[in-house]
């Protein structure tokens, strides 16, 4: 059964259509990339799914329940880590639980259990500016996970990192996802990243943005680093480059 489905989402902005008739689906435990050039409406789509923006047409369903235009159901993570500079890492990460009405001490106690799994041990009482970019993204992902373990929307989460850190983060990410099995929509404009991380890829293109193709990455998980230099990988890449033209 589908975890999350969007049906015929259409959004107008200032009188012009930004995204048109987008129907996509996400199954339990899947990582699905939405790949497209900048300005094609990927973030608008995420704003609709997260409930921040009411679509002009179409619905969003979570576990078969209509959640169109309501927030708090799916978690959202942006390119900027958006860790609050005045809170320690553990306070930042506990924030979704505190927003939900959990007591601060209880929220922190619950959160602390995940620090090791996410490779964040020892950072609990540090402030965000004391951490490197990669570590901050890890904390942001943990916060995202604690916000909702149902569905996560990641909007170019690794694009602000340098290439080497990014490579390490991809490995770390795949490893964590193996354990937590978080159903994820991932926005990216990085073809390699999309192929490496995804079970499926939706290609979004045009003006207004439309889904032009769905590609299944049929490579078993956990994926090895060498996957990105394999022939299979290159074939996927060739295909995607062609369909983005």
């Amino acid at each position, binding site marked *: 059964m589908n975890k999350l489905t969007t049906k015929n989402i259409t959004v107008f902005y200032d009188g012009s259509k930004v995204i048109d008739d987008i129907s996509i689906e996400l199954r339990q435990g899947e990582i699905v990339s939405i790949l497209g050039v900048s300005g094609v409406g990927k973030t608008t789509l995420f704003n609709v799914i997260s*409930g*921040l923006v009411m679509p002009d047409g179409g619905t969003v369903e979570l576990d078969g329940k209509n959640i169109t235009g309501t*927030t708090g159901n799916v978690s959202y993570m942006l390119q900027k880590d958006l860790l609050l500079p005045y*809170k320690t890492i553990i306070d930042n990460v506990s924030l979704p639980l505190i*927003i*939900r009405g959990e007591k601060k001490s209880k929220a922190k106690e619950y959160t602390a259990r995940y620090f090791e799994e996410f490779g964040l041990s020892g950072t609990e009482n540090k*402030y965000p500016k*004391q951490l*490197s970019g990669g570590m901050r993204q890890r904390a942001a992902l943990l916060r995202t996970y604690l916000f909702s373990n149902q569905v996560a929307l990641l909007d170019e989460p690794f694009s602000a990192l340098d290439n080497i850190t990014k490579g390490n983060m991809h490995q770390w990410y795949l490893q964590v996802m193996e354990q937590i099995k978080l159903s994820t929509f991932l926005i990216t404009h990085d073809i390699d990243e999309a192929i490496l991380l995804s079970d499926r890829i939706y290609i979004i293109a045009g003006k207004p943005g439309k889904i032009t193709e769905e590609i299944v990455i049929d490579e078993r998980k956990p994926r090895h680093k060498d996957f990105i230099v394999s022939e299979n990988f290159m074939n996927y890449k060739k295909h995607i480059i062609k369909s983005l033209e």
Partner: protein
Amino acid sequence: MKKKLQNIINKISPYFAIVVILTIWQLLSSTGVVPKYMLPSPIDVVMAFINDFPLLMEHAQATLTEAFLGLTIGTALGFVIAVLMDRFNFFYKSVYPIMVMTQTVPTVAIAPLLVLWLGYGILPKITLIVITTFFPIAVSLLEGFKSADTDAINLLKAMGANRLQCFIHIKLPSALNQFFSGLRISVSYSVVGAVVSEWLGGFTGLGVYMTRVRKSYSFDKMFAVIFFISAISLILMFAVSFLKKASMPWENTKKENY
């Protein structure tokens, strides 16, 4: 060795100018270039301060009480106004111009009116201090609220946060830095405001003391009280800096290598 010397020079240089000025002043006065009744020497001023110390403390207590009460009310008022202006655009548009206008009226001009309306007690003094101190607080807080990261607010909203939660977790902490800049100004305004209001009437306070010693041409005491007031303002400003450091621990951390 050379570096150490440089370090010492750097540390003492701010005091150097003060020492030079005091020395010249002392010389001018004690050699009789400027007559003593016009300009008392620094030593005379210190002596006057010591002799009148118990009296000065008594007056200072009154002034500080007024300043503290006025500042507290002014800060609370500034906070409420800033929150309302941030929350309701129409409130911002209608109140902001009036607020700016209140600041163009010189305090010395409204102080006598306040005495006429509210008498010689503590009320007109506190009112004056409130009028002068709420403004820096309101403006700096408002700026701080507006500087809050909209993406962070959106993220919290996506988590299902309500307006109050967004305010507590994002807007308020984002405004702390600006708030303390405003408070620093307001603190010194509060002392000056108290003194000015005391000039115009009242029975205790450093302003009253000032008026009395001026009328008796005790310029040494006059200088003593002026320096005393400056010192109080400085100490209070330091206190604000300390408070800021204590309430914003994240500002004092350094980046570590991973």
